[in-house]
C-alpha cells in the first residue's frame, strides 16, 4: 500500500499580506502538518467553480505539528493565486499533500540556502527544521528579490539563526545584482551543501556554480502542474540519463546531476 495523501477541505485560519501582493495563508490541516517535510508542497484549490480549473502547487512554508496547521506563502500573480487570496478566514479550500520529495540532510556542517522570489518559503521551512536538529550547523541564506518590497521570510530565517545575505535587482536592499553572485564566497572553504529554490534561470545558474565549486547541490524546481500527484505527466523535466522526471513526484527537490539543465 502506498502512503496515503490527505485531501481536506481545510478551514482558513489566518490570511494576511506580508509584503505587497505576498500573502501567508494558514490552513487547519493536522494530517498534512504532521507529515510535512521541507521541500515538499501541497496542491490548493478553491472549492467552487471551474475557472480557474486546476489546483496550484505551493510549497510548505511552515508546518506546526502541534497546532495542526500549515502555512503557505505565495505571491498573487494570476487567476489561481487571485482566487486563493479571496478566501478569508473561516472559508475552506481544497488542499492535498504533503507531496513530492524533500531536502536531504547535508553532509558537511555548512548549509547554503539560495532563494529567489517566491522560492524562499521551502528554504525557511528547511532552516527552521535544521535549527531544531541537535547537530550544530552553519546556515547561510542568500536571498534574492526584485526589490526590497518583495523580500519575504527574512525575519523567520534570522530567527532560525541563519546568516542572511541579500541581493536585489534594483539594489534597494543588500547587494545590487543576482543572488548567485553571492554564492561562491558563501561556499568557500567549507564542506558546504547548497539548497536552492527559485526561478528556473536562477536554478540553472546555481546548478552550474554548484558543479564548478564541486559542492553537493539540491534544487527545488517548478513546472506547470495539473494533478500534483504523478498521474498527468504534465510537469516533466528532462533527466540527464534521458527521458523525463515528474517534478511533482521525483521532485520538486532534485539532485543537481539528475537534471539535463541544457534541455530544460
Amino acid at each position, binding site marked *: 500500500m502506498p502512503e496515503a495523501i490527505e485531501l481536506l477541505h481545510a478551514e482558513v485560519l489566518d490570511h494576511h499580506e506580508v509584503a505587497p501582493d505576498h500573502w501567508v495563508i494558514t490552513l487547519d490541516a493536522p494530517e498534512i502538518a504532521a507529515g510535512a517535510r521541507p521541500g515538499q508542497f501541497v496542491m490548493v484549490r478553491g472549492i467552487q467553480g471551474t475557472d480557474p480549473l486546476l489546483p496550484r502547487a505551493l510549497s510548505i512554508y511552515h508546518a506546526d505539528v502541534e497546532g495542526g496547521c500549515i502555512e503557505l506563502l505565495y505571491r498573487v500573480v494570476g487567476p489561481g493565486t487571485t482566487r486563493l487570496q479571496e478566501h478569508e478566514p473561516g472559508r475552506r479550500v481544497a488542499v492535498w499533500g504533503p507531496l513530492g520529495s524533500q531536502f536531504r540532510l547535508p553532509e558537511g556542517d555548512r548549509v547554503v540556502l539560495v532563494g529567489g522570489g517566491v522560492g524562499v518559503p521551502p528554504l525557511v521551512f528547511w532552516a527552521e527544521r535544521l535549527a531544531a536538529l541537535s547537530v550544530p550547523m552553519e546556515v547561510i541564506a542568500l536571498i534574492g528579490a526584485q526589490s526590497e518590497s518583495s523580500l519575504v521570510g527574512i525575519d523567520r530565517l534570522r530567527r532560525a539563526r541563519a546568516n542572511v545575505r541579500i541581493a536585489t535587482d534594483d539594489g534597494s536592499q543588500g547587494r545590487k545584482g543576482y543572488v548567485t553572485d553571492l554564492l561562491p564566497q558563501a561556499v568557500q572553504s567549507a564542506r558546504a551543501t547548497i539548497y536552492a529554490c527559485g526561478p528556473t534561470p536562477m536554478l540553472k545558474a546555481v546548478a552550474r556554480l554548484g558543479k564548478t565549486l564541486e559542492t553537493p547541490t539540491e534544487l527545488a524546481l517548478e513546472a*506547470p502542474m495539473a494533478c500534483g500527484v504523478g498521474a*498527468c505527466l504534465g510537469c516533466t523535466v528532462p533527466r540527464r540519463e534521458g527521458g523525463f522526471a515528474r517534478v511533482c513526484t521525483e521532485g520538486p527537490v532534485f539532485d543537481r546531476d539528475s537534471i539535463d539543465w541544457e534541455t530544460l
Partner: protein
Amino acid sequence: MELKQSARPNLSVTVAGMELKNPVMPASGCFGWGEEYARFFDLTDMGALVGKAVTPRPRPGNAGVRIVETPSGMLNAIGLQNPGPEAFLRDVLPRVRELGIPVWVNVSANALQEYVDLCGLLSSQPGVSAIELNLSCPNVGRGHAEFCVTPEAVMDTVSACRPVCRTHLIPKLSPNTTDITALARAAEAAGADALSMINTFVGMVIDIDKRRPVLGNRTGGMSGPAVRPIAVRMVYEVAGAVSIPIIGIGGISTWRDALEFLMAGATAVQVGTASFFNPRAIPEVIQGLETWMVDHGVANIREVIGAARVPTGG
C-alpha cells in the same frame, strides 16, 4: 419525493456483456495505472480501471511545456509517454489484475499494422477485459492530422483489429470531426462492441509575451468541464444512431455531469481531467449517483440510461 425503499440501489451496468458494478471509471491518461490515486480511495470501488495508453514501442513523451490551463479546461500535449507493451505486461498488468475489477487497456498507434499487432498482443493477455482503441491522438506528430477522423479510416482500423482482438473491442472516437454519428456507425459496422467517446479537442494557447504557442507541441488536446456540452450532444446523437453501448466522456466532474451523460444515452462514463483537480472525483461521482438514486426512488441505474432522449422531430 417518496423513497421507494431503503434497499441499496443497483448501480451495475452491462457494457457489451461485461458486467460492471457501477458505470464509473477513469478516462485513459488521467489516472496513471491507478497507483497515485490508490492513496486517495479504494480503487476496487470503481466500475473498471482504464489505464494510460500503451503504444507499440516505449515513448518518452513530448519535450517542453505539456499542459496549460484554459477557461474551465486544459490542453495537454503529453505525447503518449509510456514504457511500451513489454514493461506494461511485466510491471503493470500483474499488479492491476489483482484488483479484481475489469481492466481496460487503451491502445494507441500511428499506423494500421501497429494497431493490429498491439491489439493482438494485448487482447490475449489474461486480465485484460477490453481493448480501448484510441483512434484519436492529436499530439503525436504528423502535423495536425489525426489518425481516424473519417468514417473510412475508422472502418479500416476497427475491421483490421476485430479479428485479432480476443476480448471486447471499444474504439474511442475523436470529436474533431464533422459528423460523429458517421464515425460511430462505421465502428459499429466494423464490429465494435461499444464506443468510448469522446477524446480531446485540438486547441492552442498563445503566450503573448513570448509570441509563440505555450505548448512545446504547439497544439494540445482540450479536456475538462468546458467541453462537456459538446460531448453530451455527441453522445445524444450517437445513441440515436447505433445500438452498441456508449461510454460517455468529456468534462465529467460531478455525479450531476455523469447523470447528464447517462440520460443522453451513455451506459457508462469515464472521469478524466476532474481527477486532477479533485483526486476523489471518481468515488464522489459513484457516491453521488447512489445518493441521487435513493433520493429519487430509482432502484436501478439502467432506468435512467437514455431517459432524456426525445423522439426525433420532438
